[in-house]
């Protein structure tokens, strides 16, 4: 579809939006303009090579904005950071910003240690709607917090989420994104973390639902920052999930760790693209990236690609990707003890995924995810 046609339909929805504060209106207009220039990406764009968003671009503007998006509630205190971090060059971020209406905003004051997690749940129960959830979390220096974002819903809809996390120096943040959208829903999300000096940031992205899913998880590190981006995707049927990560070592002495694991069955397809940028300044960077895939069927497809851009000369960067089937020796070992083939397969798959769940620090969430996994992989008794 031509960009003009797309944006024409978009323009009508855009102009129908309720008015907002002038600064919000300015953000919207700049973003809209950017989107009009970019249009929806196609598989000719390197960033979207393996993810065809045609099903979204065909239907997105036939969809109405979700009903709860009435009235502008963008608090003025978000002005300093809102839309200053997530990249507008991503058309979906531009689109989200053009339709900026409500913001889930949390500010964690300096030195505060939050005992319970900040929980943000986006549940879409309005089939045929498009919604653009927007989240901004500002964590002041030396504050500690846990953030849990959940995306869920029923029916066919399109979620286009953008989350910005801004961490002051010395902050400690534990972030989780749990995506359990409807199996026929579209889900596109960008998480952008801008991390101050000596910050410790850990993020886990768990993708279980959705028909067409794209996650962008980006972190920009400062001096001595430690960032961990982990992920787990479990897909079957005709599900498609694309995880793009970008870790930008902008300053020296940063460390980053990445472990993404995927389980693919049926005709499911998945993409992992891990970009690591080490800027000229960022000496003594220590970075490790791993992507492991368990492919259970002959028809599932995984495209995995590390993308290292290293401009500094005194750094350590390692990366590795594996694509494999269940270990034949382990299968035989379990079977030789009387455990049936189907159950052995479930057990080993569960164990593969459990590795990520084990890293979840919030006990209740860990338990919930274990239960989900258990139900998924223990249908053959045990």
């Amino acid at each position, binding site marked *: 579809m031509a960009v003009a046609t797309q944006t024409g339909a978009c323009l009508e929805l855009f102009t129908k939006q309720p008015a907002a504060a002038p600064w919000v209106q300015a953000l919207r207009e700049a973003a809209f303009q950017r989107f009009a220039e970019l249009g929806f990406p196609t598989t000719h764009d390197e960033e979207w090579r393996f993810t065809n968003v045609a099903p979204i671009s065909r239907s997105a503007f036939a969809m109405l904005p979700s009903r709860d998006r009435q009235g502008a509630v963008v608090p003025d205190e978000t002005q300093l950071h809102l839309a200053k971090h997530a990249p507008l060059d991503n058309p979906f971020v531009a689109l989200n910003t053009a339709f900026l209406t409500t913001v889930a905003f949390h500010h964690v004051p300096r030195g505060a240690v939050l005992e319970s997690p900040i929980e943000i749940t986006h549940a879409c129960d309005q089939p045929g709607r498009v919604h653009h959830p927007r989240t901004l979390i500002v964590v002041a220096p030396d504050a500690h917090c846990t953030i849990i974002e959940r995306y869920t819903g029923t029916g066919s809809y399109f979620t286009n989420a953008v989350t910005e996390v801004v961490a002051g120096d010395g902050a400690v943040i534990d972030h989780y994104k749990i995506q359990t959208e409807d199996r026929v829903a579209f889900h596109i999300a960008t998480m952008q973390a801008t991390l101050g000096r000596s910050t410790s940031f850990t993020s886990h992205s768990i993708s279980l639902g959705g028909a067409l899913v794209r996650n962008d998880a980006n972190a920009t590190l400062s001096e001595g920052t430690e960032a961990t981006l982990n992920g787990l995707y479990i897909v079957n049927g005709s599900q498609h999930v694309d995880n793009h990560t970008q870790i930008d070592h902008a300053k020296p002495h940063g460390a980053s760790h990445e472990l993404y694991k995927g389980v693919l069955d049926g005709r499911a397809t998945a993409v992992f693209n891990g970009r690591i940028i080490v800027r000229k300044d960022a000496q003594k960077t220590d970075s490790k990236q791993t992507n492991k895939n368990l492919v259970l069927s002959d028809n599932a497809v995984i495209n995995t690609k590390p993308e290292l851009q290293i401009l500094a000369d005194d750094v350590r960067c390692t990366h590795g990707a594996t694509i494999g089937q269940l270990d*034949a020796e382990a299968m035989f070992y379990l079977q030789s*003890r009387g455990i049936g083939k189907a159950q052995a397969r479930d057990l080993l798959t569960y164990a*593969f995924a459990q590795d990520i769940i084990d890293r979840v620090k919030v006990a209740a969430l860990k338990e919930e995810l274990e239960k989900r996994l258990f139900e998924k992989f223990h249908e053959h008794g045990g």
Partner: protein
Amino acid sequence: MSLLEIKNLHAIVGEREILKGIDLTVNPGEVHAIMGPNGSGKSTLAQVVAGRELYHVTGGEVLYDGKDLLAMAPEDRAREGIFLAFQYPVEIPGVSNMYFLKAALNTVRKTRGLPELDAMDFLNLVREKMKLMDMEQTLLNRPVNTGFSGGEKKRNEIFQMAVLEPRLAILDETDSGLDIDALRVVAGGVNALRDPQRSMIVVTHYQRLLNYIVPDFVHVLAGGRIVKSGGKELALQLEESGYAGMGIYDEGEAA
């Protein structure tokens, strides 16, 4: 009726023939030792009986309790009472020893027409068997064999055997990698499981293990065939003269 009857068994891995006509009969309660140089086919025989799909049987037959063993899936063999103590027990990260063993025991019990054990009864049974093997109970909560020392892995195998109570136990080089103290514990565990109704096949390279687990019969496997059979004194002769001294040579095939 004999428990296991192997007749003219041939097996290949890839293109290579490893077993070239094995005949062996094991009656209830008997302990048979199978010795032989490296590459003689000892481990292959053990794995074929347990049902490893890596090996293809190209000829002969195996009757277990009168039934066609080769037609059975590995899990069905286990449920019918065959147990293989692995030479190299497999590490399975993410699956707890406890969960694994409970799942295994309950499928085996189901086949025997016994009710599933509840958590309490299972724990009591396991505690008793762990004591037998001089094992730390913390091993139960760890993933299967993961990070276990060589000795712990071998003990874990015999511990599983004690819990599952097989009718036919095949011990594949259970002595390899064990120091003398660990060997005594493992052999003690095995001996405690000797029973007029339980048969064992003990595969070993060295005579040492047979000082502790005294066999009724000793067979020497070389080049994929049993070349000599006798009583327990055959093992001592071998120890004295070596395989070469008895005219038995390693043919350089995979064990």
